[in-house]
């Protein structure tokens, strides 16, 4: 076993990890701010990929990166307004059931609209090469995904931590009644947060489309890693999602190197191990609302 190959796998795992982070970040935000476990996250991810496939001939591979998440954002707003809003002060289980139903509904809608067989989707031509330098063997497209993920993470962090709007969201998620009394229309804020979370899922879908097959089951391929990453990182923690996404990426790559048959199970084992030691996940916070 040469060190060169191991280094390659390590780097590849980190790059893969960024894809996991991107898939998980929207789920993390929706949970962190609204307290809803969004089972339909994978379905919004799939919608992103499919909408991108439809729009790509008109606006190109880069254009869809902005347009498709926008469409998913719109769908997310509608879903929040019509379905989720009545459930905020009820049992958390109801939100879970509802989003689970929504996931099935969206997947079936995708089958009806786009058919059950897959659609070809290639990376934009200018990103079709790869970089091979020493142990580094990475495709340009994966580097682009990495770059977009970092930009998105910085933007989300800035939005939540440094803007007035972000402060309202954070305050509202902790003590909604108080924020309401201060004259803020909190239901509109929550609607936007849900839309933002789904848009991020959509964006992950767009970016994953050239890597994965665009088939209706793409939603299932996204939802499990998203949940695992968020659980390991600590529910609602942005920092946790980043650390655990990278951790999962590297673990998967290393398992493929040494024991490939277990590569599907390794992220779950990692999750079990982390939860045994830290039941709230790596960076999980204490939440008054759920205590």
């Amino acid at each position, binding site marked *: 076993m*040469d060190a*060169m*190959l191991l280094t*390659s*796998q390590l780097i*590849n*795992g980190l*790059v*893969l990890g960024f*894809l996991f982070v991107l898939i998980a970040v929207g789920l993390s935000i929706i949970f962190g701010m609204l307290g809803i476990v969004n089972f339909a996250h994978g379905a919004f991810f799939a919608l992103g990929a499919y909408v991108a496939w439809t729009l790509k001939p008109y606006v190109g591979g880069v254009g869809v990166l902005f347009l498709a998440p926008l469409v998913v954002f719109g769908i997310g707003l509608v879903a929040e307004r019509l379905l989720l809003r009545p459930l905020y002060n009820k049992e958390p289980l109801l939100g879970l059931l509802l989003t689970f139903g929504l996931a099935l509904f969206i997947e079936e809608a995708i089958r009806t609209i786009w058919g059950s*067989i*897959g*659609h*070809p*989707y*290639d*990376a934009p031509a200018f990103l*079709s*090469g*790869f970089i091979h330098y020493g142990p580094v*063997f990475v*495709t340009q*497209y*994966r580097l682009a995904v990495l770059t977009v993920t970092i930009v998105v993470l910085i933007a989300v962090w800035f939005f939540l931590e440094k803007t007035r709007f972000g402060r309202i969201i954070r305050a509202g998620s902790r003590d909604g009644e108080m924020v309401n009394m201060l004259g803020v229309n909190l239901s509109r804020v929550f609607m936007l947060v849900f839309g933002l979370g789904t848009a991020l899922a959509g964006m992950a879908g767009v970016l994953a489309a*050239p*890597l*994965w*097959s*665009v*088939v209706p*089951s*793409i939603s*299932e*391929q996204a939802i499990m890693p998203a949940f695992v990453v968020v659980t390991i990182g600590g529910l609602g923690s942005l920092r946790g999602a980043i650390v655990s996404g990278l951790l999962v990426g590297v673990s*998967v*790559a290393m398992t*493929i*190197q040494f024991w*490939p*048959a277990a*590569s*599907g*199970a390794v992220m779950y084992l990692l999750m079990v191990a982390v939860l045994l030691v830290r039941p709230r996940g790596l960076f999980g916070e204490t939440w008054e609302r759920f205590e």
Partner: protein
Amino acid sequence: MLAVQDFGGQIDGRPVKVIWYDENGPQTTQQNMQKLVEQDHVVGVTGGISSGDMLAVMPIAKRSQTPLIVTGANATQITGADCNRYTFRVDLPNYTTTRTVYPSLTKHGKNWYFISASYAWGIDGYKQMKGLLDAHGGKVLGADKTPLGTSDFSSYILKVVSKQPDVLFLGIGGSDLTNFLKQFHQMGLTGKIPVSALVANDTDFWAAGKEDATGVYPKIWNYTGDQNTAKSLAFAKAFQNKFGKPPESEAWQDYFGMSALLTAIKQTGSTDSNKLINFLENHKFEGYKKRPIYFRKWDHQLIQSTLVAKVRKSIPDRYNYFKIDSVQPAANKPLESIYPDQSESNCHMNAN
């Protein structure tokens, strides 16, 4: 159903009614099979893609004495260890697909790398191909198992690249194969390392796209090529007219499964299952492929020629991906030469 149309929708003045249920997971498939047998009182059942689902319903076929023609499942044991008198199988076992494509691959070299799905079908396929390779003095440079539903193959591809094999043989199918082809292409390897697999479902390649598709594969049927008979071309045309796209190979398998059942009912003039089975065991079906095809009596495997299909250099449209290199076995060899013989098989129908 196009096969029913071929028969004018009726047999001896009695209308043919098709009752159609879904196949999703062994348990529901079992329930649906029960429904077909007990409530709908069907004469015979045909279809099925997943080996797990089919292995779950085969005992029901046997218990209720209902002929079951499995069209799309590949597990060896369907016509091997788990074979029974009421089950017939159209699709090819791994024994046959590996022997179909091996001669075309071995000319690239003897050092191979394998990536196989870690369940019965993939592992069995790996064993079959490794057996052939070993027998001819080849070498396995690496063999990785991958969980079903793997979305990212980049780490596997890095391992393959580090070994520089002459041939990369895949035991994966469905969207896993599509994912693999896309990522393999992005890493600049398309055309550099020859690729083949246990199976080539058209839809997996359509989903991968023209740029990413590559390799030589065993195939049961293809809608283009000289090997097609008039009947098989007519089917392709009727399918195109009805669905607006050409038929993938599974469509032909389902078409043949239904045709076989209807032929049996028509020729025997009966719906009695023993008569139907007797007919299916002894009839030679003409016109579906150039050489007559038949269900072998002792294991109920459909004995038919296979294709070596190569992904075209330039793909003319959204569907026409494959060029047929050859038909296997060669015309001077018996069809059964690419199927396991009785001594290699675990099917003992009388014992089951």
